[in-house]
């Protein structure tokens, strides 16, 4: 059974948790930009965490269902309607054959996730269904969805009424604060340069995509140039080039690069960076590796309690 795309939106892609082991060949992992919103959407409809779902950017798609499914929309605040009637986000919904689900423009946040029970069943490429747009790899024919596409769905796994608890639903209109571990090249910046990163907030620029997000704010001063001998670029790496402005490197990042990286955004805050709209601000908070490990552990344990399952009669 499948899903018919009536309108695709500007950039709707199939994503699962991403590829593993291909960075050494220059192929990024891809996968959802906001991993936690993605996970919650899958969990709401009874899918495994690594089932493929849709990532919708800025404006969502309009989709028709061929059979009965559970669906859930999380992430960016895109108004959702089912056959024209508003329905809640961050909750499991039942759709019937022939019904039309529509995700509107994002009032807040950038990326919404639409999970369908059974998952999107496009072929595995290098072990993953994630779309890598620049490499024309994976997902649906290696590209973003277009009007008229038909997506295969896996066998539905059941489902039950469920919603995400209020306290786990982020307010994307608030200024974001993300945690950063210094390194790998923090020794290439002046004390003033490092202080600048953590002092005042930075503004998201329109130069932000699945590869990286360019920010604008106080100049981050180098000690001796911004070139290094090219090395691996970790998820969340904050690259600072000659203009002293930071670029946070994301899911579709280059595997290696030749510019200094002052620090790295912690994995549990990457999703929040990816929901900041151009013109919105975000600030960086310095943490140690030990603190980051503890925060990450606590955060992931907490996320396991984010969903409230309604009583079934």
């Amino acid at each position, binding site marked *: 059974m499948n899903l018919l795309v009536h309108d695709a939106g500007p950039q709707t892609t199939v994503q699962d948790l991403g590829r593993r082991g291909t960075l050494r060949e220059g192929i990024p992992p891809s996968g959802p930009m906001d991993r936690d919103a993605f996970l919650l959407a899958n969990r709401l409809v009874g899918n495994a965490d690594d089932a493929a779902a849709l990532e919708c950017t800025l404006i969502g798609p309009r989709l028709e269902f061929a059979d009965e499914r559970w669906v859930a929309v999380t992430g960016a605040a895109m108004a959702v309607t089912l056959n024209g009637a508003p329905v809640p986000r961050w909750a499991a919904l039942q759709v019937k054959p022939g019904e039309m689900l529509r995700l509107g423009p994002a009032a807040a946040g950038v990326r919404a996730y639409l999970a369908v029970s059974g998952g999107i069943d496009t072929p595995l490429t290098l072990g993953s269904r994630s779309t890598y747009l620049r490499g024309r790899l994976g997902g649906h024919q290696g590209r973003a969805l277009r009007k008229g596409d038909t997506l295969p769905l896996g066998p539905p796994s059941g489902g039950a009424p469920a919603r995400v608890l209020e306290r786990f639903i982020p307010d994307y209109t608030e200024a974001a604060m993300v945690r950063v571990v210094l390194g790998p090249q923090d020794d290439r910046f002046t004390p003033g340069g490092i202080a600048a990163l953590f002092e005042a907030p930075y503004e998201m620029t329109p130069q932000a995509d699945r590869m990286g997000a360019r920010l604008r704010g106080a100049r981050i001063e180098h000690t001796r140039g911004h070139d290094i001998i090219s090395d*691996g670029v970790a998820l969340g790496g904050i690259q600072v080039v000659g203009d002293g402005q930071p670029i946070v490197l994301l899911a579709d990042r280059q595997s290696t690069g030749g510019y200094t990286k002052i620090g790295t955004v912690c994995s549990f805050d990457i999703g929040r960076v990816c929901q900041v709209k151009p013109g919105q601000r975000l600030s960086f908070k310095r943490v140690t590796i030990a603190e980051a490990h503890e925060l990450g552990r606590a955060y992931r344990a907490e996320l396991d309690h984010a969903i409230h399952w309604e009583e079934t009669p």
Partner: protein
Amino acid sequence: MGIYAEPRFLPCGDLALSVELGDDINREVNARVLALEYLIRQRNLAGVTETVPSYRSLLVYYDPLTAGWDAITSSLRALWREARPEVLPPARTVEMPCCYEGELGFELEGAAEKLGLSPDEVVRLHAAAAYYVYFVGFTPGLPYMTGMPERLNIPRLEQPRTKTPPGSVSIGGTQCCIYSVESPGGFWVLGRTPLNLYDPSAADPILLRAGDHVRFRAIDRAEYDSIADAVAQGTYTTHIEAPRHR
């Protein structure tokens, strides 16, 4: 200069660290990076989820719930002591046909002028050298290579191009690379190979790998076209010489 007495462990957030083994670009340091990666993979080192080699360092992604900072750095340090070039399996040599003619080598004349050589001399020097792939990265399947004679050392372009055709064989500094997808570029394009460095439709999309040896074979436009056709039809077999010891 060269190999550090002890590896440096540089934090890269909560899920990765960079193991830096030396302070310059040389084959000896790189062979140790590749050897360390090889041993990690061979032994399934606990906690490691992914590795990315580069010139002189290995980026190691890890799961801190399996191995925290102290555990992962101490097991990497122990493995580093064993990570000598001899542990690596024999390397292969891949032949890359390259056409240096006309529009395919659209910066050959500019590079020749900059180097004070004739275009023919640049082609002869470039095609005669033996290259070594330090690592593959930046874009899918892009090899970072050295091996050029000193006479071909050339500053990078002052104004990088916004688009470089895939397959463009190019030089900058002491390095040679082959662009794998259409991308910006700061190296001088001397020619183009009809082979796919990256083919997303293939089961194994990557042609060259870290540690490979590469030889270029100068071809004319007619042969370029005929190889390109064979590649498109899936009938071309890349020439790979029997593995040899490093």
